[in-house]
């Protein structure tokens, strides 16, 4: 538009947590002092968190990256010719050529970091609303067929086929149906929902519109956790912009289809990420888990048929409609089709978001992308899939990142969070924490979860203190069985996964027989 130089500084939680706002202010001030005309765009993140704040400059149609940039780097960078993409120790060349980024296959995150998240013009110029237009043209039945054919499965963690869920809701007769988006991303090690909502919020809105059209719902809800204030701010603004431009409301694009979205904020409860508990919270109640059946697809929000999908599931849909189910289904392996935005976290050198097709080995992900541990010490354990996911030892890292391969080793991919621990970790402490967390976050409805978790902490303490160790180990195994078999939802039903895996692969940590060289937990 103008001859102003476009400089991108992410307005995304991780970048801001490392000083991106201060960097943006420093660039504005320094450019002003030099009489340079700059247009600072607050984009989303490219997912390369270890380079944040990652500043990009547009030169000859290319995006040149510098990072990590501190406010003190700004003057030297401008002197080095930042605005022309000049050389500097922090320069990484064009973003598209950075191996970490170049080796990914961005589908759901294709616009994230590239565009101004709150520019509808940029959204449309980069394929935005193509999926919705295709959906309008195809009609509800074909949309459901397309989503089914893509093989897309629920990215919240359960991996249920999305098309089948939508078909169930579409087939239910009701005066009112709903689309409820689960953005209560509480699993430690996960942040893809947040990055998407901060970096490409219209993609989620478009995905929800398509879901609404497919199942015959006119109202959507987004349930976002309160720990994500920036995502809340960005997404709330995106809703207003979309509504003002006619993408939400009545007769969208002259299609006759009405749909609007209401944003609800959670209140610090982990269990509200469980779908039925989330529905109760959306109804203004305590987030207590419901019995299933009835399925939410038939009796969900306010007792009406409801599609409950995760942010990433919904945001993956527009491109499936726009580019075709075959393109998506061609990615991945077996029944794990498409891509997953994995999140590298914990003790990792190059933490961030890596969107690749299913099938890569966990080891390749952690070493090739992640670069090993941040501490430089050996990897000892990796927890995948959040606090209800198993801990795998270093020797098992060759497992392939797909749903079935993980199920085969009693682990889960869940929402794609990968948390790496080095050899200073005390796995008995991690097992204890799993039970402790369950005790803190249990909704209290079922006994195995509410009481079992409290007893679990006590029993682990006795094992570690060598009080009747053998008897208590047997008791813990039995307790885990009871929780798995008897809990109402995954909170109590899967808390034993990290505990059992810690016992199975790291038993020496429970018996004080771990060999020399192992440190205490930091």
């Amino acid at each position, binding site marked *: 538009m103008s001859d102003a130089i476009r400089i991108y500084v992410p307005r995304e939680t*991780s970048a801001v947590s490392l000083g991106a706002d201060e960097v943006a202010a420093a660039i504005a001030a320094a450019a002003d002092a030099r009489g340079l005309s700059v247009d600072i765009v607050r984009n989303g993140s490219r997912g390369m968190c270890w380079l944040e704040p990652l500043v990009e400059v547009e030169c000859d149609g290319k995006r040149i990256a510098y990072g990590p940039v501190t406010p003190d780097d700004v003057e030297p960078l401008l002197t080095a010719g930042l605005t022309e993409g000049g050389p500097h120790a922090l320069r990484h060349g064009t973003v598209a050529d950075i191996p970490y980024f170049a080796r990914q296959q961005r589908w759901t995150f294709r616009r994230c970091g590239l565009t101004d998240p709150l520019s509808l013009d940029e959204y449309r110029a980069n394929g935005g609303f193509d999926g919705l237009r295709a959906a309008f043209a195809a009609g509800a039945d074909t949309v459901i067929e397309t989503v089914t054919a893509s093989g897309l499965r629920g990215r919240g963690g359960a991996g249920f086929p999305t098309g089948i869920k939508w078909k169930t809701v579409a087939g239910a007769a009701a005066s009112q149906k709903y689309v409820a988006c689960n953005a209560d991303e509480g699993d*430690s090690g*996960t942040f893809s929902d947040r990055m998407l909502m901060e970096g490409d919020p219209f993609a989620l809105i478009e995905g929800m519109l398509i879901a609404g059209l497919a199942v015959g719902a006119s109202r959507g809800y987004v349930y976002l956790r309160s720990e994500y204030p*920036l995502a809340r701010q960005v997404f709330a603004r995106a809703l207003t912009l979309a509504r003002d431009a006619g993408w939400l409301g009545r007769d969208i694009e002259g299609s006759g289809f009405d749909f609007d979205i209401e944003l609800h904020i959670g209140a610090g409860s982990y269990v509200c990420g469980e779908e039925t508990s989330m529905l109760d919270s959306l109804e*203004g109640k305590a987030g207590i888990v419901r019995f299933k059946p009835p399925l939410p697809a038939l009796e969900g929000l306010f007792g009406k048929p409801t599609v409950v999908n995760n942010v990433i599931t919904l945001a993956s849909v527009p491109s499936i409609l726009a580019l075709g189910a075959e393109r998506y289904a061609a990615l991945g392996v077996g029944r794990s089709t498409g891509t997953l935005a994995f999140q590298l976290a914990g*003790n990792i050198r190059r*933490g961030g978001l890596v969107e690749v097709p299913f099938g890569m080995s966990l080891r390749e992900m952690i070493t090739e992308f992640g670069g090993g541990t941040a501490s430089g010490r050996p990897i000892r354990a990796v927890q995948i899939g959040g606090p209800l996911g198993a801990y795998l030892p270093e020797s098992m890292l060759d497992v392939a990142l797909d749903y079935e391969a993980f199920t085969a080793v009693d682990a889960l991919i869940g929402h794609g969070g990968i948390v790496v621990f080095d050899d200073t970790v005390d796995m008995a402490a991690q097992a204890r924490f799993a039970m402790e967390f369950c005790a803190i*976050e249990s909704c209290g409805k079922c006994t195995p979860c509410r009481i079992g978790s409290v007893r679990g902490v006590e029993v682990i303490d006795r094992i570690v203190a060598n009080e009747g160790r053998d008897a208590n180990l047997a008791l813990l195994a039995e307790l885990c069985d009871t929780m798995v078999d008897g809990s109402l939802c995954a909170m109590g039903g899967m808390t034993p996964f990290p505990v059992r895996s810690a016992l199975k692969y790291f038993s020496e940590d429970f018996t004080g027989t771990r060999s020399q060289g192992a440190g205490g937990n930091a």
Partner: protein
Amino acid sequence: MATKYDAGIGSEIIRSFGARPEMLVQILHGFLERYRCVPREAVPQIADELNLSRADVHGVVSFYHDFRAQPPGDTVIRICQAESCQAMGSRALTEYARETLGIDFHETTADGKVTLEPVYCLGNCACSPALMVNDRVHGRVNREAFDRIIAHHGA
């Protein structure tokens, strides 16, 4: 320090959500924004205006971690206690915070300046350990960074 409860303002908050019972969690957030807590006086008023029982409202208030009954200190520091941050030393950082401030979780310093809270994931797991100061997340927080944060907030 604590803002005096005003039933008129309470009613305004409730009505700004259309006095719909299904908006209760959002209404309580409205009180949190205004009073930094859900004042005890608000509970019977909310119940009355939403046509719910006091027990219903109290049950919701007490279920969620966010809805405290007393206003916190001027600055709320929430240190992530979840696995990713544990892998990067959050247990030691938490211990350091407790010692430095002389308070435990859910407590406020004697001068009313800082309240310490646990939090289970801020979604900043690629930059662990993380903490949140009021609404601002900080990443890769070590002892020095913690000292700078509390110095900045006058503690």
